[in-house]
């Protein structure tokens, strides 16, 4: 316990410096805006702003604080367009449209916005508290992991990814393995042998992480927006003066607590983030409420559940990223890649070797959640006005930001063509129902997976049996089997 308190003291020391406070505030504001704008979600926002944050030469903890602020800020802001436009601001806010928009149509937009802001705040804060308590424990448990245990952990990560993300597990799996394949390009660090470089010197160090991220998320999103280009003008519902009442919170207290906990756990599971968390909690609350609920017609609980859950999952997703080096969602995969660019390998040792990063991030999230509540209650009208920002300015702006970010890293115009090409590829993948998050997850985890496999086999002298020798690895393989089987059984039972 004293360790947690010491850590928090360190963390607040980092996060409360004026510069980092400014970054938290800016990240939360930009995140809310990115979340509120229909189409652009947290993953695209973080992707587009990552190279700029890198180019500014921020110290790693500050860059992470800023990018994380954008991430959970966007989960906060996604609800605004769900409620006012009936268009989800991002994937995690899809369920929010179901009850949020009917409330706004009944003339309770102000109430819906303030209730969901408070639900988001509670979800986010509960999850950060859990993160503070369990993060250090998990990292202590994982310090003892041998390379073969890490291999088992990766297998579990990809199993839960394939089982829980996307409609078609084969497409999710192949997305991840394409990411792993992309990561093999370049010089093999163990032997100095070049792989798949075809004599191109630019590829010796591998494909740049930033180029993959901006291409697959920034540029592919741009093509998606051009394709979806709405002809008519979107009309936002007016925000009235109705406001959240104490009775609303008391009425929904169990919903808030349940959804925060479920959201956190789903966030922790590798690869699954806000969209799964909000869908699961909405379904759970609907089933629990039974006939007493008016879900789909503006039930407060149907609004609270997904909002508490998607914010809780954002914090939950950071737990495995910080403690195990395995991202809990697509967006945290990008954050993980960002840390790797600063030559920091997240993992069990992060809490002891770089306390300023791990604890600084956690402390900044406490501050960020409060900042978001303040930003979102009185300033919600400002964001609502920005929703009407015409898409024909927004779309070119994404390209301009992406170009600035990529060019400013090394000043190589060839990279600009690379991101256009990857953007087209990413758009095709999306059109064919491949999700892109597994690709980036595979890309980020590629070398970790391979190196641990090779290290394990070096230890055993080539005997593959080492992979199943420790109880930790057997436990993880068991979890991997469970995570694949349980959803299958549940869906079969629902059909029967």
């Amino acid at each position, binding site marked *: 316990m004293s360790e947690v308190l010491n850590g928090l003291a360190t963390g607040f020391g980092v996060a409360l410096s004026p510069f980092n406070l400014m970054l938290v505030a800016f990240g939360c504001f930009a995140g809310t805006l990115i979340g509120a704008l229909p189409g652009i979600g947290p993953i695209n926002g973080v992707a587009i702003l990552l190279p700029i944050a890198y180019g500014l030469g921020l110290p790693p903890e500050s860059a992470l604080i800023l990018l994380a602020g954008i991430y959970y800020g966007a989960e906060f802001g996604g609800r605004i367009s769900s409620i006012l436009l009936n268009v989800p601001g991002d994937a995690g806010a899809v369920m929010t449209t179901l009850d949020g928009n009917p409330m706004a149509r009944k003339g309770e937009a102000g109430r819906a916005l303030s209730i969901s802001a408070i639900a988001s705040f509670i979800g986010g804060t509960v999850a950060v508290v859990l993160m503070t308590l369990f993060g250090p424990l998990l990292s202590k448990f994982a310090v003892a992991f041998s390379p073969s245990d890490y291999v088992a952990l990766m297998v579990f990560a990809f199993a839960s990814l394939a089982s829980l993300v996307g409609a078609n597990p084969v497409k999710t799996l192949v997305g991840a393995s394409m990411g792993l394949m992309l990561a093999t390009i370049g010089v093999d660090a163990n032997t100095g042998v070049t792989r*798949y470089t075809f004599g191109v010197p630019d590829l010796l160090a591998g494909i740049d992480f930033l180029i993959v991220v901006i291409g697959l998320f920034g540029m592919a999103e741009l*093509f998606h927006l051009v394709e979806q280009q709405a002809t008519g003008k979107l009309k936002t519902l007016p925000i009235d003066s109705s406001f959240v009442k104490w009775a609303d919170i008391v009425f929904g207290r169990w919903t808030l607590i349940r959804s925060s906990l479920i959201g956190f756990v789903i966030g922790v599971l590798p690869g699954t983030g806000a969209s799964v968390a909000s869908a699961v909690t909405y379904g759970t609350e609907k089933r629990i409420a039974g006939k007493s609920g008016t879900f789909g017609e503006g039930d407060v609980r149907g609004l609270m559940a997904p909002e508490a859950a998607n914010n809780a999952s954002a914090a939950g997703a950071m737990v495995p990223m910080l403690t195990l080096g395995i991202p809990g969602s697509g967006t945290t995969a990008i954050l993980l890649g960002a840390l790797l660019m600063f030559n920091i390998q997240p993992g069990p040792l992060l809490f002891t070797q770089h306390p300023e990063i791990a604890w600084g991030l956690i402390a900044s999230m406490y501050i960020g959640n409060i900042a978001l509540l303040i930003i979102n209650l009185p300033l919600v009208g400002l964001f609502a006005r920005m929703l009407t920002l015409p898409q024909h300015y927004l*779309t070119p702006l994404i390209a301009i930001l992406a170009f600035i970010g990529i060019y400013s890293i090394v000043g190589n115009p060839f990279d600009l063509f690379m991101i*256009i090409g990857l953007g087209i590829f990413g758009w095709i993948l999306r059109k064919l129902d491949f999700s892109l998050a597994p690709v980036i997850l595979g890309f980020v985890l590629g070398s970790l997976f391979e190196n641990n496999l090779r290290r394990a086999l070096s230890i055993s002298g080539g005997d593959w049996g080492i992979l199943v020798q420790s109880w930790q690895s057997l436990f993880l393989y068991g979890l991997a089997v469970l995570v694949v089987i349980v959803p299958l059984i549940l869906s079969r039972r629902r059909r029967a």
Partner: protein
Amino acid sequence: MADRIFAGVMLLVTLAYGWLAFFAISAPFQYDPLGPETWPQILSIVTALCFAVILLRPDTDSMQVARPTWIRLSLTVVLLLGYAELYERLGFIIATALFGTLASRMLGATWLKGFLFGAVIGVAGYLLCAELLELNLPSGLLTF
């Protein structure tokens, strides 16, 4: 059908990747039992199997993109390629003003508003990013 074409093309790419892993990559000397080739070999087998499954059991029939949308998308690609090509030659301000004008015009802004948007973003973006934040952006024709 779209699924099949994509999976077919990617299967060929994966097979080429696998062929290299099995027959081309090898280390002159190595200390670990797996070497640089085993991991790509495993990946190529898994990926090839997955694409083969998609090829046999596709679930997305078509991309469902209407002809005008295809035209708009192709124009976007052309504009982006032009923007990338002129980025260094004309410099950030002029290239961005041109791209901003044409792209926003294509997506529905009027010529005047599009031009204003492009010019403002070009100049303001340069001042903000290159002067204030000291990011590396090409100045091109306009030298300060």
